[in-house]
């Protein structure tokens, strides 16, 4: 099924001269062959940047072969995926769920994609805190896979890491996961094998863990899960992935089509004055979103694994890959509120920041006012004394010396010479965050075979999986993470730790005045982030960057927790 055909189409130099269109836009579509018979070949990814290409790169394709699950197969063979459903699960319940190829329609075009339980996103598993449930998972995609239950402090054997906690689940095989939910909040599940492909094609779903206490959160009129994603599509369909390794290893695979809950035309109808609780999850491979709700007031309640010490009003919500946030949004007036991703992209060629606004969806507010107004409760930013008291036990450690340090860096080899030179020229300024694919051709050409993303422990000289941290349950471990701005290609990294929870105590030496327990947090370029890990869960666990392509380019380590 996976046709792995690698073709180079060398165009004559006469076609290589880029020509300006409308003064700014460059059309590169003539540079690559689109298809070669029934074989899958590389074609250049869509570029919407107003920059010319490096002449040396115009003929280049990634050194890995192209791969696209379901390529060439009849779409009608596949069941049409359906929108996500909520699966309420009581303690002891069992869910049978598979991963399979499905037919998806995105912006009116049909594609072969993947789905858990035939749904996009996958089924939303809803359970009470402290419940334990069983998921019998069957792999019906034609790639080995596993399921990682992101953010859960569950038993190590069910963490879903191939080669560490389990063997890969091969096609047609099953694996039984036992989940437990010790922490209230929103979590998610996704593959931990080639997630650059499988997650990007739709393998993701949420787990919503309800509190046992009344009034755990401030009141809201309704609850809405919102899954943020993007996908890379051109006129010929999905842009192929790398077969033996990822493409886009430098910056990760940014999509050019944005989706909320798997659709491009998301709409929510609410009544005037409603307070809507959004459970946000970013499942994109690499894109960090800056979410704005059309000027509606936003109050943040909770991060990945807990509430914040105090509720806080914000004007936008910054969500890095794998992060979750729970926010209340107050729709005070009737009308239309656009949900947007509002960023300042960078145009390296022109040397400028470029405001970009991606419309993700719409909230339509009717003229009818909500019967049970929660305005007063919304406008009151609550102190969460329960979490404050819980954190009191950890405050003595906030200023302790780091137990470990990590430096985030990158090593490259065998990249095209012009990319190497261009990166040197372009590194006079590196932004703290990459909000867009500012160098789409160079990024696409960089594969996981040429790029090694590094977690470096300078004290020992160890890197990545050679790092060997040994902790005991009950330890409170401080890690200082420094994102080296002088590496070959610095980039922000969402740092994820499996099976434990942590606090971000300092950013660049500045104490964090309002904490929540996290499992993933952004380390911007140049910054030093101090985290305090509550070591509570025995086993062999992973920590890694949650940009899918960086993970597969080696940006990971494992640590052992003993009883």
């Amino acid at each position, binding site marked *: 099924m996976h046709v792995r055909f690698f073709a180079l189409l060398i165009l004559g130099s006469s076609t290589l001269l880029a020509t300006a269109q409308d*003064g*700014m836009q460059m059309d590169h579509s003539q540079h690559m062959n689109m298809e070669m018979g029934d074989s899958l070949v590389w074609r250049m990814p869509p570029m919407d940047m*107003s920059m*010319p290409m*490096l002449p040396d790169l115009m003929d280049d394709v990634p050194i890995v072969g192209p791969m696209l699950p379901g390529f060439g197969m009849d779409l009608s063979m596949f069941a049409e995926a359906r929108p996500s459903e909520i699966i309420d699960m009581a303690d002891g319940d069992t869910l049978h769920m598979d991963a399979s190829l499905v037919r998806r329609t995105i912006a009116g075009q049909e594609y072969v994609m993947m789905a858990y339980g035939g749904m996009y996103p996958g089924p939303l598993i809803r359970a009470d805190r402290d419940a334990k449930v069983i998921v019998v998972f069957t792999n019906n995609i034609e790639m080995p896979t596993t399921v990682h239950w992101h953010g859960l402090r569950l038993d190590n054997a069910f963490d879903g890491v191939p080669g560490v906690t389990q063997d890969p689940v091969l096609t047609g095989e099953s694996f039984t996961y036992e989940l437990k939910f010790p922490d209230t909040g929103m979590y998610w599940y996704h593959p931990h094998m080639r997630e650059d492909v499988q997650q990007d094609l739709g393998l993701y779903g949420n787990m919503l863990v309800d509190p046992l206490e009344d009034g755990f959160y401030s009141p809201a009129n309704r609850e809405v899960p919102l899954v943020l994603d993007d996908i890379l599509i051109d006129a010929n369909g999905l842009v192929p992935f790398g077969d033996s390794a990822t493409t886009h290893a430098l910056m990760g695979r940014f999509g050019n089509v944005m989706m909320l809950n798997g659709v491009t035309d998301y709409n929510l109808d609410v009544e005037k004055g409603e307070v809507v609780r959004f459970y946000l999850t970013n499942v994109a491979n690499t894109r960090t979103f*800056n979410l704005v709700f059309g000027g509606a007031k936003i109050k*943040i309640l909770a*991060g990945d694994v807990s509430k*914040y010490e105090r509720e806080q009003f914000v*004007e*936008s919500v*910054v*969500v890095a890959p794998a992060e979750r946030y729970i926010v209340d949004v107050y729709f005070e007036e009737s009308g239309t509120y656009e949900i947007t991703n*509002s*960023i*300042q992209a960078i145009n*390296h*060629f*022109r*040397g*400028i*920041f470029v*405001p*970009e606004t991606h419309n993700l969806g719409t909230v339509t507010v009717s003229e009818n006012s909500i019967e049970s107004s929660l305005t007063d409760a919304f406008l009151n930013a609550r102190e969460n004394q329960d979490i404050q008291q819980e954190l009191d036990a950890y405050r003595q450690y906030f*200023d*302790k*010396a*780091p137990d470990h*340090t990590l*430096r985030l860096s990158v090593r490259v080899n065998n990249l095209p010479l*012009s990319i190497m*030179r261009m990166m040197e*020229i*372009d590194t006079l*300024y*590196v*932004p*703290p*965050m990459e909000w867009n694919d500012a160098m789409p051709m160079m990024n696409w050409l960089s594969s996981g075979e040429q790029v090694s993303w590094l977690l470096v422990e*300078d*004290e020992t000289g160890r890197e990545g999986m050679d790092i060997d941290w040994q902790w005991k349950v009950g330890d409170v471990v*401080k890690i200082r993470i*420094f994102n080296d701005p*002088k590496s070959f290609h610095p980039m*922000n990294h969402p740092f994820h730790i499996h099976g434990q929870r942590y606090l*971000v105590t*300092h*950013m*660049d*030496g*500045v*104490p964090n*005045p309002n904490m*929540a327990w996290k499992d993933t947090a*952004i*380390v911007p*370029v*140049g*910054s*030093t982030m101090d985290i305090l890990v509550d070591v509570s869960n025995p086993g062999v666990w992973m920590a890694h960057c949650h940009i899918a392509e960086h993970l597969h380019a080696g940006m990971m380590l494992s640590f052992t927790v003993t009883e």
Partner: protein
Amino acid sequence: MSRFILPVAVLILISSAGWTTDHSPDSGSDPVCEVIPIGPDYYQIDLVTTRKVSGARLAKGFGDVTYAHSPFGVAISPTGTYVYDISVQMSNVTLAEGKSLAAWVTTPQLDSIKSLGRLDEDMRVRGQTDWNKFLLVITLEPDSGPLPETWSGPIVSRGMSRSGLMHTMAGHGPFETEPCAVFGY
């Protein structure tokens, strides 16, 4: 075209002045973690004296850039710009009676100016900006009364945000044949 000459000139001046970026993160060997709110070295703004002001011809200074508090770690405005706290520290300055230093931020085009406030007795002041590219300017001002909307005194020192080093590639390097005018330069 001419409106770009000034910022480019300032950029070149600052580039030639160099940047102090060679600090490394704490090693972790200290028994107690030092909690000093200093921004990433990489984005620190070196302030370069104009040598025009008596008592400040040998002035030194820098602006530390950290993120304003945000529950997301990185502080971002609704339009996507970074929201920075800027901590200014000056030294080697002897002020005449009735004079003070004030800090300002301005866009590279100098078309918008905001005050960060007067420096205190320790030659420090802290303010905030949500501009992605900006100049940090220290001026000599009267030591009393409200600060005007823009500076009135001479410039003592100035520096540019690290992002100021990012400039067009049109007409340069591998794109030297690209016509600058097509890209607005």
